[in-house]
């Protein structure tokens, strides 16, 4: 762990002397990319962060939204990519632990977890399969033990993640507005470290996350302890109820160094602490190790002497250790001592604010010809192709994953995983829908439009349940930012997200940047992940059983936008073409009318078109409801296209609506008025999924066979290889 030479000069001139070894460790941790956002911070400011529902207060690690009646929700997203790539079980599990503590820091109870998982090609690559399997078990074991339901996420496989893993976790909290921790502290208050003991695990973790991954042995392995995390949650919430917490911060990347300096800086106070007071796992740890250890399941709390007794009692009840490690001073210094000896004494604003960089950017050379299409081999038998397609890892049902997550605990999950987005009931009678989405294949071809597409897709997913998007979380994952071409893709994505957020007035309530995601064969594809929170005032759309004679209507145009599609990449092994572009106005029109139709109770179910296009989206409805459907491809609105493009284009802003025939007239009236592009394209019934053109079945699948394949293929692949 070390500083760059110019950073060392910078530090030396700021403090006017040579830093001590402990000071160097503290600053190196805090000035790492992971903790300081030195490459990205200047640019993140462009995102709109304010809105009528957003509550912003100093020192929160998570976004806070007012959902009415005195209640708030909190949300945050994190990744744990580097640790998961070497120890998928522990890495993924501790990733969940970290994001949960961010939610807890605001004083809210965590009520849901989401996970976004990305690995190499699990069909061919045993290492990818091992990573996938163990990351899923890690998340399951951690979240299940906490009793927080994991209610959504996504899984994607792409060769760009070979020998690597992206493990993103998001969490949502819920609580009373009056119980939010109002971070404040005054001179003489006590600084308490609560939770697991500090050990040598994870030393250098945040630096590790800011280096590219080499195969060299790493000590940054963390052992998850969900049981102690559960006890911390209950202890903290009890302490919150008794008003014992003045300020609070979780320990994550950079350990005590970051938590202490950031807390002091945010509250404009100083903190004096003694490393001898930290409860450690091993007796011979030196101050430097104690300050940068990233041992999991720890929280930093500021309280006062009067409240300490009660806090101690709560900790005893929950059998967790709590040590007073220091106190608040008024001199804005972070003073670290070992007994009487000073190890570090630094101005908190110096530690907490690395010099921000303005990295050069340049449009990557690979983009020059990327939109050119190659000539594709004709598909002779679309039905056969379709069976292969629905069993492919990216299209197959993810039930093997979410079936291992307790998604019912907490008894809030009224719409369960497997739908476009899950829905939770809140204590004020409202409902919350949430989903995270990413699409590196699109983002590789066009970082700006791809990122916007992820944003729109996540919105579509919550809209399908009747929810209006009220907040966004972004997680920006890229390769080495020192490479101007990579930095350009980062900026393009960010600008795209900003434009969409502003147009739709969806504030960004939180996010994370993860850079240096490089595999042995190069950088990952640009992988922004977007999380959307949607609010439903009355009732969500509970998907109803589809019966014979029900109608299928599509909203939105299907366009010739095949670049980065699963069809091009999986079936034709071709990376290129023009990727789907969101037309903001069309997007808004379609979103609004779908919400209106749901509110008017005209629909049985709604599903959006995304990965795999229309063919996959219709099949998913049929397979989920175990009923056939006849679709006329000629009727699909949009420019005139070849059948494969109608079937598999991944154009955005498209929704499939299922309704009873008797409601079609009313529906058409409303749709006409809305100016949305739409068409009735099919009717349900029978045992086959059929896509027809000129009275021929282009695709004809038995729904039961398709369903079996779609449901089981991922498990078969993982379990029996």
């Amino acid at each position: 762990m070390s500083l760059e030479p110019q950073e060392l000069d910078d530090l030396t001139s700021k403090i006017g002397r040579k830093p001590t070894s402990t000071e160097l460790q503290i600053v190196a941790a805090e000035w790492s990319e992971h903790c300081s956002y030195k490459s990205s911070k200047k640019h993140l400011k462009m995102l709109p962060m304010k809105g009528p529902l957003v509550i912003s207060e100093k020192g929160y690690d998570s976004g806070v939204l007012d959902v009415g009646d005195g209640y708030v929700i909190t949300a945050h997203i994190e990744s744990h990519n580097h640790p998961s790539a070497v120890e998928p079980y522990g890495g993924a599990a501790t990733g969940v632990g970290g994001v949960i503590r961010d939610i807890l820091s605001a004083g809210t109870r965590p009520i849901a977890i989401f996970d976004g998982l990305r690995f190499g090609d699990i069909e061919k690559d045993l290492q990818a399969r091992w990573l996938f399997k163990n990351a899923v078990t890690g998340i399951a074991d951690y979240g299940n033990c906490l009793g927080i339901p994991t209610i959504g996420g996504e899984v994607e496989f792409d060769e760009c993640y070979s020998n690597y893993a992206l493990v993103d976790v998001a969490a949502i909290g819920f609580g009373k507005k009056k119980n939010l921790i109002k971070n404040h502290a005054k001179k003489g208050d006590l600084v308490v470290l609560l939770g697991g003991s500090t050990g040598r695990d994870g030393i250098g973790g945040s630096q590790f996350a800011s280096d590219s991954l080499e195969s060299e042995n790493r000590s940054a392995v963390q052992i998850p302890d969900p049981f102690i995390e559960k006890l911390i949650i209950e202890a903290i919430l009890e302490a919150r109820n008794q008003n014992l917490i003045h300020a609070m911060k979780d320990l994550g990347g950079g350990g005590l160094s970051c938590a202490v300096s950031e807390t002091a800086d945010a509250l404009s106070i100083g903190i004096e602490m003694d490393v001898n007071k930290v409860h450690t796992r091993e007796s011979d740890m030196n101050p430097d190790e104690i300050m940068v250890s990233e041992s999991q399941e720890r929280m930093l709390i500021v309280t006062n002497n009067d409240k300490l007794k009660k806090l101690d009692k709560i900790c005893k009840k929950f059998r967790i250790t709590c040590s007073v490690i220091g106190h608040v001073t008024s001199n804005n210094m972070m003073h670290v001592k070992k007994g009487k000896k000073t190890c570090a004494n630094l101005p908190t604003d110096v530690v907490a604010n690395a010099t921000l960089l303005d990295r050069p950017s340049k449009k990557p050379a690979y983009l020059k010809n990327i939109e050119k299409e190659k000539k594709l081999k004709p598909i002779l038998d679309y039905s056969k192709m379709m069976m292969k397609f629905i069993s492919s890892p990216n299209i197959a049902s993810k039930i093997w994953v979410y079936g291992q997550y307790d998604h019912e605990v907490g008894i809030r999950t009224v719409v369960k995983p497997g739908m476009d987005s899950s829905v939770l009931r809140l204590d004020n009678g409202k409902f919350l829908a949430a989903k995270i989405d990413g699409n590196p294949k699109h983002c590789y071809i066009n970082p700006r439009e791809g990122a916007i597409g992820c944003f729109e897709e996540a919105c579509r997913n919550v809209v399908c349940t009747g929810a209006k998007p009220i907040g966004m979380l972004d997680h920006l994952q890229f390769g080495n930012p020192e490479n101007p071409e990579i930095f350009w893709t980062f900026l393009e994505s960010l600008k795209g997200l900003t434009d969409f957020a502003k147009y739709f007035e969806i504030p960004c309530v939180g996010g994370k940047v993860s850079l240096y995601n490089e595999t042995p064969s190069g950088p990952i594809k640009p992988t922004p992940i977007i999380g959307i929170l949607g609010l439903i005032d009355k009732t969500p759309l509970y998907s109803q059983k589809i019966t014979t004679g029900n109608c299928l209507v599509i909203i939105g145009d299907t366009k010739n936008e095949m670049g980065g599609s699963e069809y091009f990449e999986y079936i034709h092994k071709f990376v290129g073409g023009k990727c789907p572009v969101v037309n903001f106005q069309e997007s808004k029109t379609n979103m609004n009318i779908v919400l209106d139709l749901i509110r008017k109770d005209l629909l049985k179910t709604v599903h959006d078109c995304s990965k795999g296009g229309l063919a996959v989206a219709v099949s998913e409805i049929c397979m989920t409801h175990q009923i056939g459907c006849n679709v006329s491809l000629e009727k699909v609105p949009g420019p005139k296209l070849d059948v494969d493009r109608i079937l598999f284009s991944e154009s955005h802003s498209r929704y499939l609506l299922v309704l009873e025939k008797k409601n079609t007239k009313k529906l058409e009236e409303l749709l006409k008025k809305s100016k949305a592009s739409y068409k009735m394209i099919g009717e349900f019934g029978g045992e086959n999924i059929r896509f027809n053109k000129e009275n021929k079945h282009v695709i004809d699948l038995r729904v039961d066979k398709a369903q079996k394949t779609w449901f089981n293929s991922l498990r078969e692949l993982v379990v029996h290889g």
Partner: protein
Amino acid sequence: MAIFNVHVIIENKPGISDPEGETILNDLVLKGTHSAISKIKTAKMLKFTIKEKDKKSAQTRVKEICDELRIYNPMVSKITIDVFDS
């Protein structure tokens, strides 16, 4: 060729915590009156039945299998292999 029993013990490397062992010690054993116990560490064991020409090659073979199939993750765990006549 002969049949051997090969026991593989998989446990966390030294310095890596073992929350399960700690819980069993603190919440079960020390809650009783068993203060003679000062530590409990958990491990997992796999017992292989293998046909090989001798003990040595049985041991080598099992080690290879454990490494190749990632029966354990060397980042976190270490293994100990013992061979017995069956």
